[in-house]
């Protein structure tokens, strides 16, 4: 444009060129200002199961009186899911984070990017925030669940036992067996619900690492995770016996997390232990 304007000694074209040059420079400042001062208020990563994608929830705060727009975040590569921050407000980004194997996924730094307002410039920054995401073992394995306290024989699967009492429906949670999902309800456009049964009687189940002697380590952990998930889904009380520890039988989401976390971290104690995966 400049060349054309100069060549034809065309004042209008030159002025247009200069105006757009100025505009571009202004937009550079605006782009910078759009990211400058945005605060990462919270970054939480809910535990997930291996082979699935976890979610890293980032909450951004905007301390300024001017809104910010199109702030995107990424772990490493291409940014996704931009969010807008109202004045003095907050915005949230849910980033998918891959969980290839059990243990802890360490996220050292986040990539924040914005191209607002005109897409001519790209302001970016790294946020160095050590975030850990706990990855439970993939619930897998087809061995029958031990029935009684300490008893490793006695095969009884939850779903094909008519003796269990119907408890009701609850929302789907990660790790629930697809066999327990109320697909009929789902077909009626209800949310994904899971049928809950209470085990007949207040049975205690103790899942013993040592009882699975003839499986490789990871398979053992996956089988134990399967059992924990199924037992919690069945509303049963269960405990976990590992070579390096013992978790008393109990039930509830916190208990489930404790058991699965123990399985996730089994044998990885030399890695820095994240007591609370949320930072």
């Amino acid at each position, binding site marked *: 444009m400049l060349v054309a304007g100069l060549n034809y*000694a065309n004042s209008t074209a030159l002025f247009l060129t200069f105006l*757009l040059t100025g505009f571009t420079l202004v937009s550079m400042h605006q782009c910078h200002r759009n990211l400058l001062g945005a605060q990462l208020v919270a970054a939480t990563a809910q535990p997930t199961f291996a082979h699935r994608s976890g979610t890293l929830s980032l909450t951004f705060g905007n301390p300024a009186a001017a809104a910010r727009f199109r702030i995107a975040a990424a772990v490493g590569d291409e940014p996704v899911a931009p969010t807008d921050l109202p004045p003095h407000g907050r915005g949230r980004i849910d980033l998918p984070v891959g969980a290839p194997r059990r243990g802890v996924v360490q996220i050292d730094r986040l990539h924040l990017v914005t191209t607002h307002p005109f897409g001519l410039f790209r302001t970016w920054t790294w946020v160095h925030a050590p975030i850990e995401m706990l990855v439970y073992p993939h619930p897998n394995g087809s061995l029958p669940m031990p029935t009684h306290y300490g008893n490793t024989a006695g095969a009884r699967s939850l779903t094909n036992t008519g003796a269990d009492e119907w408890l009701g429906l609850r929302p789907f949670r990660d790790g629930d067996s697809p066999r327990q999902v109320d697909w009929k309800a789902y077909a009626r456009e209800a949310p994904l619900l899971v049928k809950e049964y209470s085990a007949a009687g207040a049975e205690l189940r103790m899942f013993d690492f040592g009882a699975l002697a003839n499986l490789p380590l990871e398979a053992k952990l996956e089988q134990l995770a399967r059992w924990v998930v199924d037992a919690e889904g069945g509303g049963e009380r269960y405990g976990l016996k590992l070579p390096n520890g013992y978790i008393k039988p109990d039930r509830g989401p916190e208990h489930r997390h404790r058991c699965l976390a123990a399985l996730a971290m089994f044998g990885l104690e030399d890695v820095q232990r994240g007591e609370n995966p949320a930072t």
Partner: protein
Amino acid sequence: MAKIQRPEGSRRGLIWATGAFGAGVLLNVDRVPYWVPIAALVFVVWRLMAASQLRRLPGVIIRSVLALLLVAGVLVRFHTLNGLSAGTALLILMGAVKLLETRAQRDQFIVVAVTVFLLLAACLDRQGLVHAPLYLLHAWLCCVALAVVAYAPTAVSAPIPAFDDRAAMLLAGRSLLFALPLAVMLFVFFPRLPGAFWAIPRSDEALTGLGDSMSPGSISELTTSYDVAFRAHFEGPPPPPQERYWRGPVLHEFDGYTWKRTARSFASVEPLKYLGPEYRYRISLEPSARHWWFSLDTATGSPEPKVYFTYDYQLISKEPVKEGTHYSLVSYTSTRAMQPLAPLARRYDTDLYGNRNPKSRALAVKLRSGVTSDSAYVRTVLELFRTGGFQYTLTPPRLGFDSVDDFLFDTRLGFCGHYASAFVLMMRAAGVPARVVTGYLGGEWNSIGSYFIVRQSDAHSWAEVWLDGRGWTRVDPTAVVAPERLRRGILDILPNAVSARARFVWSQPWLGALLQRWDALNTAWNDRVIKFNFADQLHLLQQLGIKSPRAEQLGWAFGAGLVGWMLWIAWQVGRGAPRSRPDKLARAYIALCKKLGRAGVTRESHQGPLAFAGELSKYRPDLPDDVHSLVLRYARLRYGRTERESYLAEVRQFEQEVSRLALRARASETPHR
């Protein structure tokens, strides 16, 4: 790694980009063949219908075929893809085809970019004062479209303060305003070129203005255009009407039918003795694609090295006048030669080139023999024109090869060219050196801007004869036949000479006055802004005190300006950025502490509210109880747990109570420790 998907463009982005593109087409609509905007319109409608699910977008084969057809259409029409008109047509068509495959955000960006180039094309073509606001508006439209397109990809829904159209419009406007100072600075100081890198011939433009030949006999109707040829600003008083002869090409060679300029330039400029008043003036020449620069009668020299000053006082530019040009001249309307005419020039300007027009030549010889001097002979011939039943018309009959014979003895109807041609032939036939001068006569005086507007309809031709002892002397035979032509424009004597529009304007005095105002404004715009060039830049720098601007000086000044602007922008843009500005509650607390400070209690910066409250109750029991409880309330509001709704109300109440609190000043005393 997952395949990166190109972000989808938003519907809103599509509508804005398409709208800006459509406006860009409108800006160029009258410079491209009529089918180009129609095709663009069809594609725009098609794309918008597709966006509303009314129609499907064409597949890749149809798009390719369409693109090829349209390029072929441009080629057939222009025989080239180069040049401004062909390029613009191509840009419009390709942008329109691009619309049909616009899905991703990136495509929308491309459409906006094409639109900016359409704007540039419009700027290159027309730079009038009327267009400037349109261009600015369109630039703004492009920026808004850019903002909306850039905002597009939405993965997370429902942002509370959505970046809506209004926000985009405001932001784009603000950004352009911020850019304005830099643009002005760059415009004034950015180095211009004295010439061009290359020239693209603007072949599609018809040549206007005076030609380099004149054949009065071949013209049966003189089309008079109302276009402006040039404007002339005089420093002192303007010349009287009978002296307003604007000199253009001088024609020497006559074959009996057509007068031509000479290709030869065998003589140098003879020194002249200037008589009468001196006229200093500036000419703003409109583009004409001709080489002529005009001057008032006899100029004293060439204004620029690239313009020749010929021996017959023409100004001839090496380059055709492709753009508006302005230059300053000094002229005299009355001169005396200081030396006799060179024999070669005498022979040249008495040459009759063959034996055409025998009757006229015989008449000339007869008339010459009846008088004693050349000047008496001139008067005799003029008398012949006056009394011989000649009439002035712009629609003369066609003439044969002996055009002067036909005119003098038969038709006796003609315009300036006929009279000048006949007169010069009569002179030459009697041995008096003579030549035809073409140019303009008169011009419209614009009293608002104090300048003459000389239009193509003011074109004129007259004669110059060499009189011994005086030199070249202007004789206008037309003035004898139609003396009013001198005083008034061609409109007055021949109202049918020009277009209906011009006639209408001329018939309404108020409209004429309005148009004069408009022309004055436009001229100022043209002179100050549009024709701002290398020379003006130098002039401006010299006025600013830089006598011989050197590159590095300019560079430093320029850099300083740029840095200053950048700082200003950073400050302006950053104003919305966070500052450690305390919130409402903290502001109220600070106000409270200030009041206490005036009453003699200063809170040390390390003291929290609780510690401060403790100190207050301990050392200053004289203060009202409110003060103590207010400080504690701040601590509770700041750190305690409250519902959001009641919190806001409580903060407001806290604020009010602080402002109502009245303390007696006891500035002399500091708190005890």
